[in-house]
């Protein structure tokens, strides 16, 4: 069961792996997988959306967490 209403989702095929999201994530929930793309640790992600606002490619999105139950 998810704790937060939103979560970050990355379009892996368009991600350029620049690492901006890793730098801005307040929960250190993002890492770059072998220089290929950014991976979001869903356990840590609180869905704040800061990564999405800073992503220069605009490929990380704040989306509704479907597993979230009130």
């Amino acid at each position, binding site marked *: 069961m998810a704790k937060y209403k939103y979560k970050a989702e990355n379009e892996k095929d*368009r991600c*350029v792996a*620049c690492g*901006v999201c890793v*730098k801005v994530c307040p929960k250190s929930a993002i890492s770059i997988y*072998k*220089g*290929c793309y950014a991976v979001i640790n869903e356990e840590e992600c609180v869905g704040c959306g800061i990564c999405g606002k800073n992503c220069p*490619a605009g*490929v990380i999105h704040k989306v509704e967490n479907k597993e979230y139950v009130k």
Partner: protein
Amino acid sequence: MWVVSATYFALGFFNIVFAWFGVICFLIPLLIAIFGGGKQYCNHYCGRGQLFLKIGNSLGWSKGRLAPRWLSSKYFRHGFLVFFLFFFVQMVWLTVEVAKGIETLHETIHLMWSFDVPWHWAYRTEITPWKAQFAFGLYGIMLTSLIVGVILTIVYRPRTWCVFCPMGNMTQQISKLKAGKK
């Protein structure tokens, strides 16, 4: 690291010989990627990327708008890489011609892939002509990407340049190849 990048451009303005340090920015990221370090260079060390963040975020010059989506498309990124390599090869070719004595030294900076800007004041110490030609050529490439990058940082988000940076693209392709093999 952004200080290093800013220093590089300042030094090249006064003495073109320093432009040779730019080779580091081409070799290190490739070597890191080849030896399995992924995009550590982009992620932690790229002085230019940090300079864009400094200008865009710390100085607050960036409008923070999202760049058009086609910038991150494979076609544009690879297309720009080919475009970039074409001009890189052309620059090396001119260096070779100067070394052979076919061409004379151009004391200009080739900006935005089209304009030749006079830069003779930076040629202070007499060095072998081809070495000087390579310095002028490389500095032109570096300065062009800085100008494009700063404009993109201001109009869009900081580090929008990174979306289609030829070096970043090359290191990512190497990383993908390496990750795919395992």
